[in-house]
């Protein structure tokens, strides 16, 4: 399969996933409702005189993004289980790499959209200077999202045939989520506190390293998972 055909397959798979989601809307709405609920509950549960916005905001943001995203990841391969559609895909010349990348792109667009819709709610509840360092915050969100979507896509493919896939996915992902989410929380804290970049650049390097490792690891393992 040439690079043009691979690109065409990636676009076709991502496009199909998004079209199915647009038709059914199940994962999108449950993720959005979940995100808004978490942000609201965390906001009202705290004592504002004891816990400041800057202390709570980074954690609230990443709890919301991570778990709302996970709801969407669960669905990524569930729709392939329906009618054994993945068998149909595997009978085409599309390579496992193209299938994985197509799934990752579809999931990134899905999770990115959920994040985009939840961000205004976050801004509404938490009085933090988000606009001052917006580009670097977006970079951190993009990197951490890419990391957990890569590994989430892999595990979603792995657990889809198990009876308790919706429970298994978070359980399996947890150890792998720990490093990028911790790095993302630390970075978000530094960014929102308007600290100089040099103070948290170590976390940024760590996050970037995890994303590269997770992505490569997921890409290589995907073929074996897809086969049986």
């Amino acid at each position, binding site marked *: 399969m040439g690079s043009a055909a691979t690109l*065409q397959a990636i676009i076709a798979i991502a496009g*199909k996933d998004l079209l199915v989601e647009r038709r059914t809307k199940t994962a999108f709405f449950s993720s959005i409702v979940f995100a808004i609920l978490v942000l609201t509950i965390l906001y009202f549960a705290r004592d504002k005189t004891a816990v400041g916005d800057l202390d709570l905001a980074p954690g609230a943001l990443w709890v919301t993004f991570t778990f709302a995203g996970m709801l969407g990841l669960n669905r990524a391969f569930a729709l392939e289980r329906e*009618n054994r*559609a993945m*068998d149909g895909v*595997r*009978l085409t010349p599309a390579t496992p790499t193209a299938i994985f990348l197509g799934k990752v792109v579809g999931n990134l667009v899905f999770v990115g959209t959920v994040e985009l819709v939840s961000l205004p709610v976050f801004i509404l509840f938490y009085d933090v200077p988000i606009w001052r360092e917006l580009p670097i915050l977006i970079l951190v969100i993009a990197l951490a999202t890419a990391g957990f979507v890569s590994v989430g896509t892999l595990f979603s493919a792995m657990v889809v045939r198990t009876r308790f896939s919706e429970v298994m996915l978070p359980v399996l992902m947890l150890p792998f989520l720990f490093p990028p989410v911790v790095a993302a929380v630390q970075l978000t804290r530094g960014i929102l506190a308007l600290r100089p970049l040099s103070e948290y650049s170590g976390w940024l390097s760590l996050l970037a390293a995890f994303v590269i490792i997770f992505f490569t690891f997921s890409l290589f393992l995907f073929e074996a998972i897809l086969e049986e």
Partner: protein
Amino acid sequence: MLLAEPAVAVRGVFRRFGYRWVLRDITMDVAPGEAVLLVGGNGAGKTTLLRVVSGLLRPSKGEVSLGGTVGMVAHHTMMYDALTAHENLTFFARLHGLKIRARIGELLERMGLAHVADERIGTYSRGMLQRLAIARALMPEPRVLLLDEPLTGLDDAASRTVIDVLNALEEQGVAMLIATHQLVELVGTAARVGYMVNGKLAALEQCGGDAGQVVGRYRELVAGG
């Protein structure tokens, strides 16, 4: 006389799931333009053999070689309920790197589904889904077609459509391996019959076109162990 290269060559194929051997030492060829019926009880290994030949499953031992693109129709449609027939076929055409939109229309027309092409397939009847699955399998113009119970859920008219399509494909040189229990309808399509008993290919013989004879021979093989 020069013999044509087989379109499907299965050599000493074994397959197991856990400790259970589902296929045991299967060796067979299918020539281009030849249809072979696979006959056997439930759990005899017909579906597993088709999945191994298609490449969806790896053999535990042995090897399979194919003389061209493979298409497969299985128990499941291998398509997405939330998409229309046209969208499903367009998606698979893209994965095959095909740009010919006209082919999608032609396939839908051929399978009698053109009038419902823009309806979500989740609303289709079993027969319509089966015909759509055949259209999907024919999309890449396969040289090898694997069919697992292709007439399940089809009424007489739809069965006739499918049988006519299969006969036409046979004439075009497409090799077919058909697992079925519906012998009366399909026995006329096949040149040979493979009898599967407990994961083994107990016999691979010329088909006389008589379903009763095939059933009788199968019972004989089962009784003989």
